[in-house]
Structure formats: C-alpha cells, structure tokens
C-alpha cells in the first residue's frame, strides 16, 4: 500500500480514512450516510452530530470484545478496526424490524406499560422475548477482561475544557503557585478554535497560530498539567470529580496496558469551561439520514477536513450559522438554500450581505416543514413567509435550533440554573460549591466579553494578572435567537413523525399524549415517554422538550423546570469503575500458614469471609463430600482429629480497666474467674440479640484474650472500639487484633491427650493438672505456645496457639507423633456436624440477629449478679420474655431412615393441602441438619415457636418435594449430655 490511508471495516466493507478520523468522519469521507437503525421503530438513521452528544450513530466495535453503543462521532479509527452497525437484522439496508415503523401508530408513549399487561405468563413467555428481539441497542460484549486503573489528584484548580475560555484561564494561572489540572475531552486543545470558523484572529494572529503558542506556554509552565482524551463524568460534593481518560485513542488497545484511567480529582476550585451543545429542532422526518446539526457540519469541515455535502440547505433560528455559511462559500460549496425562522429585520447584516453577494436562495421568516426520502434526504419542503410549501431537492440539511450551555456538570455540582429569555436556554445562576463558569457554559456567547469575564471571575486568585487580548470574529458579535421548538406539520398521516428524542424514538406526539394522560410533571413525563433517557441523555433535545411542554401547558419554561441531571455525563465503562479490583484482586484471599499442607492433602476449600478454609479432605479421588465428612467425624469420635482453626478472630484486651470492660462486653461474669482460665462467652447488641460468641481467656484482671467467629473478627473489634471510645472513654483499656499473630489448631478426640503428651512431653496433661477450660503458656523449641483445654466437638480437646512462623513445623510434628494413632485432618463441614451432635450453636446459622441467649436456652451464660452489660436491659423487655418466641430445639425423625433438609419449615399440621388457599401455620425453621454416623440417624436443630414446651411432642418438617416428615422434638443435645467425653 502506498497511500497513507487507514483502513477499517464497516458492516463487512472496507473503507479508508485519514489519521485522526473518527468512524463518523471517515464514513462521511466515503459518503456513507446510513449508519444505524433506531431503537423502537427501526428507522434508518445517520450521523447527526460531530461529538459526544451523538444520539444516532452508535456502533459496535467487533475487535474490542464486541464493545457496544460506541459513538461513531467520538471513536477514532485505526488500521484493522472492525465496526458493525447496530439494531438491524438481517442487514442495515433491509431490516426486518422496520415493520415496527409500519405498526408505529400503536407504539405510542406508555405503549409497553399499557399493552403487555396480561394474561399471566404472557409477559415472560411471549411479550418479553418478542420485545427483546426487536427493541434495544447493541449486543453485550463478550470475553471481556478489564484493564483499567484509577489515579488520584489533589489540585488547587481544575479547569474543565481546553477551548478558548479554558486556555485563557490556564494562561492566567500559568506561573502562579497554584496546582492546576486542565482537562480536555478531545485529543487536541482548542475547542471552538478547532471546531469552527468563528474566530478570525487573536491578537492579530491566526487562531491556530495563537493556539499553538499558548499550548507551548502552558506545557512549559511547571504548575499546569494537561490531560487530553479525558472526559469529566461526575461532579460530586466537596469538589470531588471523576474523569475517564481513554488511553488508546486511534489505536488498537494493547493487551497488557490499561485502556481506561479513572481519574479521581479533589480540587479547591473548579473552573467549568466546558462550552455549549447545539440543539436540534423538531419537524417531520427530522431523523432522516442527511439531517445534521449545523455546528457539527462545520466541525467536520474544520477539524477533519471532510465536507459532508457540497450543497446542503441551512435551517436556523439564530445567528450562530453565519460561520458555516461563510465557510461553505469560502470552500466553493454554495448552500442550496438558507432558511431562517427570524424576520429579515432581525437577521444580521453580515449574513444578509453574504447571501446576497453569492446569490443564495434565502427564505426569511420561513421554516422547514419536513423532509422526504427513503433511507436518506431527497427533498426538503419549506414553508415560506407566505405559508406556501415549496420543495427543494437536496441531500443534506444543516439545522441549528440554538445553543445550550453544557450545564450538566454545573447542576451535578448542585448549582442552580436560571432560564434566560434572551438566549432561550438555561444558564448557571448560583454556584453551590467553589465552581466558576467561563465562556459559553455560563451563557456568554459573545467572544469579546470573555476577557472581561475571566479577569473578573478569576481575580480572587492570588498571583494572577489581568489578561489583555484582542479577539476578532467572523460575522456579528451579537447572539440573536427566535423561539421555535417544532415547525408546523402539513402531513396529518398517522405515520408522520417529528422526533423529540432520536435515541429513544420519542416523538413530539408522545409528549402531547403524555400530558393528555396526566403526566404533566416533567419528571413523570420523562419516565412515561422515556424522553432524554437514552445513553445521550437528550443532550441535543432535552431543552427542546421543555420548550414544547411549556407551550402545551401554557407555562414558562422556568415553571416547568428541568429533570435532574444525573452523573455520569456520558456512559462510563464498568471496567473503568472496577479498575484493578477485578478477578483475583476483587477481594483479598486470606490463607492460613498451613494452607500448603491442606493443598497437598487434597483439601477442598470453603470461603469463610475472605478466608480459605478446608471444607473436607478427599482421602481418595472419587470421595464425595458426604463420604469424607462421615469418615472424618466418625474418626474424631473414635480416635482423634485436627482442625486448622487459625482463622478464628483473636482480640487482645489490656489495661487497668480490662476486667470492667470485658464484663460490659460479654454476658458472662469474669470477676471471680481465676487467672489462666477460660470461658465460653456471648456478646450481645444493645437490643439483646446475639452478635458473636467466643472463648475469653483471662491472663489476669488487666489482660484478656478473646476469640471471635472467623467471619466476625473485624466487626467484633470495631464494636468493642466503639464502646471503649464513645461510651466509656474514661476506661483504661486497649484493644488489638492479634488474629494473624497466632495460628490455631484444634485437636479433639479420645486420643488427643495422648498425642499432646507426646508432642509436649514436659507438660502434664492430666485432668487434675490441666482441667477443662484452663490454659498454659509453654516454651516449645524456643517459641511460645499457648495451649487451651477447650472443645467444640464435645470430645476431650485442646486448642494450640502458635506463632505463624512455626505453625507448619508444629502441625507436621503433631502428625509425626501420632503416626501410629491415625490422627485425621478434618474440615469445617465435619466441625459443623460434630458440634451439632452436641447442640453447640454456630453464629449465623442458629442465630440471625433476632435471637437472644434466652431463645437458645443459654441462660447459664448470663452473669446474673452483674449490674450491667451491653444488651442486658433488653433481655427483660416484654417482647423478649414472651413464652412463644422461637426457641432452639433438637429434631429427630420418627422414621430414622429419613433425612431432614436444612432451611425447611417446621409445621404443626401433618398435611399440606394440594391447593394452598390460605397461609400454612409455620412454627419455625430448621437451622442445622446432618446425618450423624455415630448415632446412625439424622439430627437437626430448629428454632420453633414455644419450642421449650414442645419437647417430647411430634411435629412435622416440610420437604422440597412438598411432603412432610414427622419428627420428635428433643433437647438440642444428641450425644453425651453428661459431658463424659468432654471432661474425660
């Protein structure tokens, strides 16, 4: 290839574009006008604008994970890019869905709400699949892997927009001691200087020459940082803004590099210099390919050097189209006609002179009635001053319905806007934050006023000098506009359409109908018609809708108000929001020091909070979980087992008032407890509900160590901190999380004492010397180990606390010393089964935040003599002491071959009627259920109403196949109620 063209594919066909072209400018270069089908009616659509405001030209980038809804007017082409049009089948030219256009008279506002109501089941099976096939925009991306990062900035001044006002503001701040960040959406600075023919000269230099010099000056100043290809999407409270930077503009995204950067900016002052957006007008077939906004047409010529059409028609209601007219004439492209809604007396002299000098057909006080053509404009009909319709052959129509300050970010910042009767639009009125608006975003459309505005509004910044600059413009300096929102329609056909929202296919008729049906509040009307609810958020049309509605309601636009502008300013990829927090980085994984051993011994892991815990160990390849759990648990009861309990939360409580504090935090009493002993303890909320449980070890009155559930460690610590700091700040107590300072092993089973005696052969483990619920600190191979006699299985058992560095060594030693005993490693599932046999509760399984210690018959854990502890008073509230509260019971199936399902309902009635016409009386629910290999039958725990009084009676448990199982209510303690094993 010898040319320097960039080749890409659109709908399978190869096109060449220039470097810097957007998909839209390249397609226009190739004279492609039809680029998509509309959302609801599948009408042919073309390129309407030249930027971020585009409602129509949304495409799918096939070679970028099928990225949908990409604006062709923004995305730059690169070699080998594959682009597809959206929302058409089988092809853009012959689209099946355009039958919707024929049916369109019935698709009016609220159509979906009204039509697809019944009968039952029709929505799911018929309506929804049907609508999904024909409505909607792009197809979702696939094989998408996020590659984005986040960056933080703290600056003094943020300038949004690198156009004329933004550049002047930056210039004024250059060399000051302020940290300035200048953000530009396009890949080049310049804004209006690049997009239009409006500025003739600045300080007697060509606009682009001045731009180049200014950019060099800013680049050389040390206090200004410039970000290009970056769009500010969100303006939050406390001057916090987020912006998305596209790192792969005009290039295929690289595999390993971030595609997007989410900038989080905190600033002292924000300067909004983000300009304005031209608005369209509603007329018959104003959506036909070939209709384009006038300033966009001008931008294609100026910025991209593409003339979309050599002889377009210009249709305007304001003075801003002069620059396009002049540009076209300079390019030897004579417009076919110039149609101005204004009276000739109101039209600028410069415009009139130019039209006359070049003999351009001129229609003052006239309007475009509509346009016609099959898939693009062929003819435009004009309603003249004398109310006569004449038809002009043309293939493009440039429309300007006025200029809107881009107030999106300003209103996000919670500033107030005000309707300006002179320029017929909303403009910023009062800032809420430190926000300054400059240039056209502040409603200032007159260039010569910009210098004064900047000097005035930025004078409060230290170290700035007034700037002095001479700006000469092409045409008139004044901005003059006549109010019009929709032109008069001659065609009364039901199929005739005048659009108010191109992306969502909302017509002006829909607005009328919505108001007729009572949706006359603007926020209601928006939702009923879906006006301005597309991905473009009605950037070129939402103000027009307010104009039309205000006329219909005979109210002022101010009274109608606007809908709330909500972030983001334009669509933001989820990838940018996620940043690096994806896949393995989404949530940290916590592993115990024994983790490698677990893997080597075929552990299957379970997530407990962020922890990876062995769930069960596969003894052989095909062993199922059920088989493993039965094997492991039986073995613990017969010999011994070891569980990695390192994930247990551990909190150290120290200080002169530690005892008083622990007494307040837990239900139990710790005062009379002997040093070096331990207690199973309950923690409540002030509402009396169980929050957590654990074992509290007392070293002395000034030093305690408590354990928490694996998932609850952080919450328990912050609960303790809250009370220590806010309720009793006078108590001398210090809290410290030591979860990761100790690995913990739980060894239990009848042979556990024998194993420990072998490992720690100088410690006396006899019942006298080392009774249940006591602990010892010992030295083992020069490191400190704490051994606690405690058990969560009901067997003789010990917990060993060891610094993590030595944990794996000790773990392996324990196995070495018990090689003739058959010590079995067991996981969390077996732990759950073993504790259920003993009726021990699990926080979050037997409790759910509505369960008190009384409900679980744990009254023995409440320090009766204690004057106060957190939640104590709540335990005597009338509701808490009711006899028919749900209470914890055990369930055993009458037919012992049956299994009980966890989570099933417990009911009083034997029969579930085949046709359920009234609620079935429920007693409660099954909280835990297992098959006990030791007892050789199913056991379950349940919370049921008035459970304590039901012990010994027969009730029923539902099953997932609509049956019931008869069960006997028993005390929730199925094995060794005398604790002989535990204390042996």
């Amino acid at each position, binding site marked *: 290839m010898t040319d320097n063209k960039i080749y890409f594919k659109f709908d399978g066909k190869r096109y060449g574009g220039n470097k810097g072209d957007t998909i839209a400018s390249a397609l226009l270069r190739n004279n492609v006008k039809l680029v998509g089908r509309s959302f609801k009616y599948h009408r042919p659509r073309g390129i309407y604008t030249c930027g971020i405001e585009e409602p129509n030209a949304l495409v799918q980038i096939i070679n970028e994970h099928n990225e949908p809804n990409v604006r062709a007017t923004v995305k730059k082409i690169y070699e080998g890019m594959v682009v597809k049009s959206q929302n058409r089948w089988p092809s853009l030219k012959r689209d099946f869905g355009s039958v919707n256009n024929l049916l369109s008279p019935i698709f009016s506002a609220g159509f979906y709400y009204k039509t697809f109501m019944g009968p039952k089941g029709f929505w799911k099976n018929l309506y929804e699949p049907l609508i999904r096939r024909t409505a909607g925009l792009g197809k979702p991306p696939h094989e998408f892997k996020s590659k984005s990062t986040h960056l933080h900035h703290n600056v003094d001044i943020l300038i949004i927009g690198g156009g004329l006002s933004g550049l002047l503001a930056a210039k004024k701040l250059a060399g000051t001691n302020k940290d300035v960040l200048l953000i530009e959406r396009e890949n080049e600075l310049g804004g209006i200087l690049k997009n239009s023919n409006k500025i003739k000269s600045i300080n007697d230099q060509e606009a682009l020459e001045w731009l180049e010099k200014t950019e060099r000056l800013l680049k050389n100043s040390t206090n200004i940082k410039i970000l290009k290809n970056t769009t500010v999407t969100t303006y939050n*409270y406390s001057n*916090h803004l987020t912006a998305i930077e596209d790192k792969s503009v005009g290039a295929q995204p690289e595999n390993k590099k971030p595609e997007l950067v989410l900038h989080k900016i905190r600033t002292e002052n924000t300067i909004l210099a983000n300009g304005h957006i031209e608005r369209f007008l509603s007329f018959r077939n104003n959506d036909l390919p070939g209709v384009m906004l006038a300033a966009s047409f001008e931008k294609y010529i100026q910025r991209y050097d593409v003339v979309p059409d050599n002889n377009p028609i210009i249709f305007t209601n304001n003075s801003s189209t002069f620059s396009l007219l002049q540009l076209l004439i300079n390019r030897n492209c004579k417009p076919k006609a110039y149609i101005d809604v204004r009276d000739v007396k109101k039209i600028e002299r410069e415009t009139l002179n130019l039209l006359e000098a070049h003999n351009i057909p001129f229609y003052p006080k006239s309007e475009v009635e509509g346009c016609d053509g099959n898939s693009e404009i062929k003819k435009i009909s004009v309603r003249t001053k004398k109310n006569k319709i004449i038809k002009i052959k043309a293939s493009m129509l440039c429309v300007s319905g006025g200029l809107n300050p881009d107030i999106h970010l300003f209103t996000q910042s919670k500033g*107030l806007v005000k309707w300006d009767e002179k320029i017929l639009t*909303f403009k910023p009125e009062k800032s*809420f934050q430190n926000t300054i608006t400059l240039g056209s975003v502040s409603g200032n459309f007159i260039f010569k006023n910009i210098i004064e505005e900047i000097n005035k509004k930025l004078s409060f910044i230290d170290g700035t000098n007034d700037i002095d600059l001479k700006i000469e413009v092409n045409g008139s300096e004044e901005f003059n506009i006549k109010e019009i929102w929709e032109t008069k329609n001659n065609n009364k056909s039901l199929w005739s359409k005048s659009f108010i929202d191109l992306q969502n296919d909302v017509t002006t008729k829909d607005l009328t109908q919505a108001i007729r049906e009572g949706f006359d509040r603007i926020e209601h009307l928006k939702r009923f018609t879906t006006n301005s609810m597309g991905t473009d958020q009605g950037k070129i049309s939402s103000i027009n809708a307010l104009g039309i509605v205000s006329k219909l309601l005979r109210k002022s636009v*101010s009274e109608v*108000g606007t809908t709330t502008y909500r972030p983001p300013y334009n669509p933001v990829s989820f990838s940018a929001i996620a940043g690096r927090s994806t896949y393995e980085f989404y949530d940290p994984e916590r592993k115990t020091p024994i983790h490698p051993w677990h893997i080597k011994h075929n552990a299957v892991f379970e997530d407990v909070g962020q922890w990876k815990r062995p769930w069960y160990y596969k003894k052989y390849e095909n062993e199922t979980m059920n088989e493993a759990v039965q094997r492991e648990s039986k073995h613990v009861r017969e010999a011994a087992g070891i569980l990695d309990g390192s994930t247990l939360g551990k909190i150290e409580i120290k200080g002169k008032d530690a005892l008083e504090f622990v007494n307040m935090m837990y239900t139990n009493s710790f005062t009379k407890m002997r040093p070096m002993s331990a207690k199973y303890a309950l923690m409540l909320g002030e509402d009396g509900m169980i929050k957590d449980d654990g074992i509290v070890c007392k070293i002395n009155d000034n030093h305690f160590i408590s354990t928490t559930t694996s998932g609850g460690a952080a919450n328990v610590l912050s609960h303790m901190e809250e009370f220590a700091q806010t309720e009793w700040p006078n108590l001398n107590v210090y809290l410290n999380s030591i979860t990761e300072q100790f690995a913990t092993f739980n060894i239990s089973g009848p042979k556990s004492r024998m194993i420990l005696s072998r490992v720690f052969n100088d410690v006396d483990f006899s019942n006298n010397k080392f009774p249940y619920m006591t602990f010892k600190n010992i030295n083992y191979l020069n490191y400190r180990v704490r051994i606690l006699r405690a058990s969560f299985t009901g067997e003789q058992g010990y917990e060993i606390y060891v610094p993590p560095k030595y944990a794996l060594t000790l773990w392996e030693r324990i196995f070495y010393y018990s090689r003739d005993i058959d010590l079995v490693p067991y996981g969390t599932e077996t732990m759950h089964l073993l504790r259920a046999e003993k009726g021990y509760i699990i926080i979050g399984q037997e409790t759910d935040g509505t369960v008190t210690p009384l409900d679980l018959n744990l009254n023995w854990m409440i320090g009766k003599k204690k004057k106060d502890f957190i939640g104590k*008073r709540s335990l005597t509230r009338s509701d808490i002491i009711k006899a028919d509260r749900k209470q914890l019971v055990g369930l055993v199936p009458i037919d012992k071959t049956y299994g009980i399902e966890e989570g099933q309902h417990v009911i009083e009635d034997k029969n579930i009627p085949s046709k359920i016409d009234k609620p079935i009386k429920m007693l409660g629910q099954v909280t835990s259920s297992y098959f006990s290999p030791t007892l050789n039958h199913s056991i379950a725990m349940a919370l049921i109403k008035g459970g304590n009084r039901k012990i010994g009676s027969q009730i029923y448990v539902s099953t997932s196949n609509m049956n019931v199982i008869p069960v006997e209510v028993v005390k929730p303690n199925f094995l060794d109620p005398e604790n002989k094993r535990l204390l042996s």
Partner: protein
Amino acid sequence: MLLIKCPYCGERDQSEFTNGGEAHVTRPKNPEQVTDREWAEYVFIRSNPKGIYYERWVHSHGCKKWFNAVRNTSTDEILLTYKIGETPPLIKKFQNILKSPSGEPDVGSGNFTVKKP
C-alpha cells in the same frame, strides 16, 4: 465523595470513614431502673432531621478514632467535626444556613435545579 476532617488526621476522603449514626445519644446510667419505653428510646429511636444533624463517624481506614460531626442533611455539607467528649456546638450557630422552615437551603439541596422565577 465527601471530604471529612478527622480531628486527629485532617481532611481525608469519605471512603476512609464509616458513619456511626446519631451522636450524643446517652446510654442510661442505670439501665435496670429505666422503663421499657425509655430503654427502647435509647436503643431504637433516632432523630432524622432535614437540616442540622449531629452524628458520629469513625476513621475506620485510618486512625480508627471515633469523632462527632455536624452535617446539614439536606446538602450533605459537613459543617464541623469535633472530638468525642468535646462540648457539641449550639445549633444556633448553624441557623443562618437554613433558609426555609423546612430546613431547605435555596441552593445545593438537590431538590431544585431551577431558580424559582
């Protein structure tokens, strides 16, 4: 994202903090002696004003200290922060912020975008 001034660390992003609900809710000195209703007031009932609100925050991803703040709930402005134990500022101090009886300021509340004609 709000900028919150931790009285110990200075200004930090909101994401470093956790809100702890209404401030200056006093735990009854002798819980055994209060009625069910009084106890329930302490445990469950919180004021929910539109306007000036005294609330607690904890610098959970920072110094972990609890502190108090005064926030205008209709604009989300944090007007003041102060340490636990310090005397709360009088509500009168913020009265000029509230422009209407409902506590709705004329700008920043989020309820109005357009200035009333």
